[in-house]
């Protein structure tokens, strides 16, 4: 049985609409104008237990809305969703005990108390047996290298440290499904990497299914073998990151260092960057072999590398094509 099964899932919002000014404000007293917004437009996918799936998309694409429907926070307006065999919106106790939600930038630990006290609170809420709790808690603290930070009041921790203790608190009940909504937002690069490594380690050790939303490419690249690209409520792509590049990337970048960079280099391809003898050329994928051959034959080449375009460009292309 799949961990997550989604069929034609849909979420439509009625958003009130009004123009600026005093006259419009008075008019809105009598008549409410609303606009229909399809935040999630009939999407379908299935996720097997233990998978780590990244939901990519620009702001407002529908990723957080999807996550909220799968964690039971929002009622879908159409279609159906099943997580661990449960219907999330029913919010059954057994379901809630097996999931966890972590939202970047939103704390749920007690602000003025050490994290350890909040952990105790969670232990009582989730009815975790004492030995299991202590063992897992200490293991998580070690994995995240928290040490004595858990004894300091949460408000005294830095943003990154706060995120770490939040993560520990949310995993104490050993959930089978992790919903992570923009978990690395606002964190510095080192901390982002740390969190990613931790999620991967946790998934490896406990086999939990992870659903992650992010608009940071780095999160997805580092963590998610599978990527679902959402744009304007629709799924544009569902598969591996490599396949994404293969399908949508139409260009490659040739980085070449020439002994003599004079003359017309435009005949080889579009010059993206030029730094003395180091030149970046953008070449159509199909032409890459022939252009490379010509360069090697006709010029004095000191160094040559062929690169895929950065994944951000690929994603941008996916969005452009998707909304066309």
């Amino acid at each position, binding site marked *: 049985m799949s961990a997550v099964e989604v069929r034609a899932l849909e979420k439509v919002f009625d958003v009130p609409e009004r123009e600026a*000014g*005093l006259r419009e*404000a*008075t008019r809105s*007293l009598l008549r409410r104008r609303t606009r229909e917004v399809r935040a999630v437009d009939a999407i379908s996918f299935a996720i097997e237990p233990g998978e780590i799936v990244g939901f990519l998309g620009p702001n407002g694409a529908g990723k957080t809305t999807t996550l909220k429907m799968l964690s039971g926070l929002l009622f879908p307006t159409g279609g159906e969703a099943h997580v661990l065999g449960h219907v999330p919106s029913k919010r059954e106790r057994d379901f809630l005990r097996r999931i966890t939600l972590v939202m970047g930038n939103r704390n749920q630990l007690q602000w003025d108390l050490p994290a350890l006290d909040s952990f105790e609170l969670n232990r009582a809420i989730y009815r975790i047996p004492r030995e299991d709790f202590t063992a897992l808690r200490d293991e998580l603290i070690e994995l995240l290298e928290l040490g004595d930070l858990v004894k300091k009041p949460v408000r005294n921790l830095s943003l990154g440290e706060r995120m770490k203790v939040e993560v520990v608190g949310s995993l104490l009940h050993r959930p089978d499904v992790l919903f992570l909504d923009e978990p690395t937002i606002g964190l510095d690069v080192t901390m982002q990497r740390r969190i990613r490594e931790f999620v991967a380690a946790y998934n490896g050790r406990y086999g939990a299914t992870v659903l992650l939303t992010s608009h940071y490419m780095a999160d997805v690249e580092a963590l998610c073998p599978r990527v679902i690209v959402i744009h304007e409520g629709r799924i544009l792509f569902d598969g591996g990151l490599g396949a994404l590049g293969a399908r949508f990337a139409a260009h490659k970048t040739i980085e070449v260092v020439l002994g003599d960079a004079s003359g017309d280099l435009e005949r080889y391809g579009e010059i993206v960057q030029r730094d003395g003898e180091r030149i970046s050329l953008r070449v159509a994928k199909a032409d890459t072999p022939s252009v490379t051959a010509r360069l090697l034959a006709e010029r004095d080449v000191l160094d040559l590398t062929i690169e895929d375009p950065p994944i951000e460009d690929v994603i941008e292309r996916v969005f452009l094509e998707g909304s066309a």
Partner: protein
Amino acid sequence: MSVAARTPVREEGRLRSYLDFYATTMRTAVQANFQYRADTFLYMTGTIIEPVVYLVVWSTVARAQGDVAGITAGGFAAYYIAWTLVRQFNLAFTPYGWEWRIREGRVSANLLRPIHPIHYDIAEFAGWKFVNVVVWIPVAVVLVLIFEPALHPGLEDVLTFVPALWGAFLLRSLNLWTLGLVSFWTTRTAPLFELYILLELLLSGRLVPLQVMPGWAETIAAVLPFKWTFGFPIEALVYDLPVSELVGGLAIQTAWIVGMWTLMSVVWRRAVRRYSAVGN
């Protein structure tokens, strides 16, 4: 060179820019507050309950005995219904506002504006009054129908009432704004504010018409500013005061406003100095 760079920067005349500032701020406040209709109505209901309770209590006593200190049940009704309008007018920026500003680190924004920050707070609340009064009118109609006030104001009473209303607003704004400045020295302004409200309750005519208070309290109330933030406009409208007292009242109110403005300026300067020395 662009047009913008060539023409020298001009500034409007001072008085004109103040008027413009007030007009714009007030208009924006009305628009903003319009969205909070539900809140305004709830808040208003909350503020109306207080005088209704007083009204019912004193009417009960008055009905049992004929009158209290010369005021009949109908007289109390008139007093407290006028009270509700005056209350809408004397709502002002409280010390909690300053506490919040300091806690959220917004004081710098106030200090960087080329205009004394009190003008914004006064203008914003002044704008809200228009929405408050509009929401108040149906409520007042209901109150009049239920409590049957004995109200027969003369022209001179109404002509005094309107400036007295605005004067009350100005004076109370000054009082509370200055009190709020204590937040620059301590975060615990709540007890001070509550003390102010206690004094106001007893000595401004908020709890009862001042003539119902014992004689010595009435005397004290006459020399303190509280009466001029609350009781005076009510008395001007509801009682049949001679013109000399009406004009005299407005004069005393104005004197208090001038005095409090001076005090406010002094305290503000000290507060800014403290803020610049201590930081956030």
